């Protein structure tokens, strides 16, 4: 019979890519003027213009260290403001001549550590930084990046050491923010907030980027202390600086989500669908709205596709986000807990602890939470949301 025959051949013949790989059917646009993609115009965007020019020169002189470093730095900056890791790959390409080198030039070494950190390859990033500290112990960047990584890993005494060295080499708002950050996670949250508030008032000459970072760190510390209205004020001051900062948007959205202000998050992030972390918050906000916006389903499947694409690539950089997605949008506590546990092997930030404990509660697997509970206690971490979860877990 025809249908049987077709089934036999059809299975092998039609090009079937799973939903992971293909979102829609490829098509021929009807109109030549159809806009397919938006990029940075080199005519209107000075940085894009500079990057194109640098890349052109770099193609001719791939071994030019200052040129390669300048281009790589531009790319790293772009990856931050656009929340687009494609630029990190471009930066790595510029450093390709020295990527495997045992002892590259110091500037390359520090940038290489930054890129390895961005791939969550913390071990090798720290190795590069140790080498850099031997070659150029007075380079403040080395100590700042080291402090950052150690803070993410939850090694607060190591991070504090690096911060102190940084403060000696480059005193100022950056060093203070780094120290305050570590202190706020390590039993001195109130002190850290006063320090930051005082410093911010006194450092009116600091750059917009520096202020933005300090204000965000302050806001996050205040959130952990449960001082939500002060935190909101700090977030708003940071937003008022006018920089597009995906990290700031994400942190502020988390506060709003905790306060049940999903509609505000949906409005804040409605045009931020490209960055996974922001799309995740947007979808979380939409899931809390009644009725759910029409875009909700599409956002969930888009996130799913992105995580699956990451798995295909062998990237496991966003396990924290994926755990959050799995718990709150897919409602699979067991899988979320597994992801949170794997993520915990790599990094120890409050957000990592929170999704771990939330998953453990949802999966009713209280013994799994042990390592996180021990960490919170040992480091005197002050965080009202974590405290609620600890309470829940200890009461059962």
């Amino acid at each position, binding site marked *: *019979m*025809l249908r049987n025959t*077709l089934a036999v051949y059809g299975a092998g013949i039609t090009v079937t890519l799973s939903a992971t790989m293909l979102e829609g059917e490829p098509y021929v646009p009807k109109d030549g003027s159809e806009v397919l993609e938006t990029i940075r115009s080199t005519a209107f965007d000075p940085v894009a213009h500079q990057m194109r020019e640098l890349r052109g020169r770099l193609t001719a002189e791939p071994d030019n260290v200052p040129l390669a470093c300048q281009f790589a730095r531009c790319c790293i900056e772009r990856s931050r403001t656009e929340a687009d890791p494609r630029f990190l790959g471009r930066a790595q390409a510029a450093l390709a001549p020295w990527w495997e080198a045992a002892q590259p030039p110091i500037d390359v070494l520090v940038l290489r550590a930054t890129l390895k950190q961005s791939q969550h390859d913390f071990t090798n990033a720290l190795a590069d930084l140790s080498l850099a500290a031997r070659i150029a112990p007075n380079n403040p960047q080395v100590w700042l990046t080291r402090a950052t990584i150690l803070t993410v890993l939850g090694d607060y005494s190591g991070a504090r050491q690096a911060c102190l060295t940084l403060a000696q080499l480059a005193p100022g708002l950056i060093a203070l923010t780094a120290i305050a950050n570590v202190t706020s996670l390590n039993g001195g949250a109130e002190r850290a907030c006063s320090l930051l508030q005082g410093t911010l008032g006194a450092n009116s000459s600091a750059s917009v980027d520096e202020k933005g970072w300090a204000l965000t760190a302050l806001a996050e510390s205040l959130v952990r202390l449960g001082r939500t209205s002060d935190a909101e004020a700090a977030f708003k001051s940071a937003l008022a600086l006018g920089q597009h900062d995906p990290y700031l948007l994400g942190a502020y959205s988390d506060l709003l989500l905790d306060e049940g202000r999903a509609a505000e998050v949906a409005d804040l992030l409605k045009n931020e669908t490209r960055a996974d972390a922001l799309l995740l918050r947007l979808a979380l906000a939409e899931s809390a709205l009644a009725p759910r916006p029409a875009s909700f389903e599409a956002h969930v499947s888009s996130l799913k596709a992105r995580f699956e694409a990451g798995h295909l690539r062998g990237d496991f950089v966003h396990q924290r986000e994926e755990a959050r997605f799995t718990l709150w949008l897919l409602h699979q506590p067991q899988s979320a807990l597994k992801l949170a546990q794997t993520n915990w092997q790599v990094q120890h930030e409050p957000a990592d602890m929170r999704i771990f404990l939330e998953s453990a509660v949802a999966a009713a697997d209280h013994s799994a939470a042990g390592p996180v509970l021990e960490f919170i206690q040992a480091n005197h971490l002050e965080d009202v949301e974590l405290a609620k979860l600890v309470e829940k877990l200890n009461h059962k």
Partner: protein
Amino acid sequence: MKTFFLGFIALLLISEPRAGAHTQSSAYLSLNATTTNLTGEWHLALRDLEDAVGLDVNDDGVITWAELLSRKEAVSSYALSRLHITSDGQTGALHITKLLVDHHSDGAYAVLGFEVEGLPAAKRLELTYNAFFDIDPKHRGLFRLEEEGQTRVAVFGPDTSRQTFDLTTPAPRAPFVTFLLEGVWHIWSGYDHILFLLALLLPGVLRRRNGEWQPVTAARPALVNVLKIVTAFTVAHSITLSLSALGYVHLPTRLVESAIAASVVLAAFNNLVPFFAERGWMVAFGFGLLHGFGFANALRDLGLHTGQLAATLFGFNLGVEIGQLAIVAVFFPLALSLRELIFYQRFVLRLGSAAIMMIASGWLAERMFDFKWLPF
């Protein structure tokens, strides 16, 4: 927390790679190996192509379809220079067959369809993938190999840019031979065609006399009659199959399949209550036109080998004819030897036709109302 990044030159940089941004540069490559051809589809992100070959021709910050089209040559030659498919030392020639657009979760992609030629009887494929690695070592080519319902996946990266895949698919043959065999197979595995033929052939060794079936006296006229029926059927379906395959006529699959089922019902019913002329070959010709559309749908799903369409069509039609003659070769001597028996006229013809009618009515209902209850 945020990563703060101090520049060494007066420049100050903040690095926040931890905002959990979207996926890094990926491309999606699929290859589809069938017994007849090797085709593929390659999805390349417009943002990667922009950096590799330049797409924003007027530099206004948007890439339009017209701009992509105007850079089709550059995109194609870039892609072709970055993908090599070889087999046992022979290099496959890649031909871009189409340029489409698709949207993935991280942006718009150019979709290149291509055919690989020059790798006859390939048992293993060696792929060398080098797209974008020079501008982005984090780029990955996500590869999918499809053959006969099997799927394999692999990832190409700078350290895994060359990979080998053993094919389980039988070696591709010349399209003519392949489609000839497909034609034979199609007749044998397509029960509706077999039953239609049987309905026409059952009375082939009988003649209608005074409202009763009588056995023919000589074998030769009966054989001629049967061959006329089979050949008329082939000629007719060749006509519509060719018209349909060449794109001149197209009928919806469900309509065609339903009509084919109806033709089987009618042919069988005619053996019980004769209502059309005894000239079986004319009936075969008329309904053959219909069955041709059904073959065309099957052929389309097999993947027509463009460029060798004539050989393909001729091979398929010839295969169908050979398949039918093989059925005749089994059926005719049997029917001829049994034709004198009252058993043949009463039971084989009548019960057989009634059974065919019932089965075909079932198909008709299934196909008209799009459900499934018969096991075949």
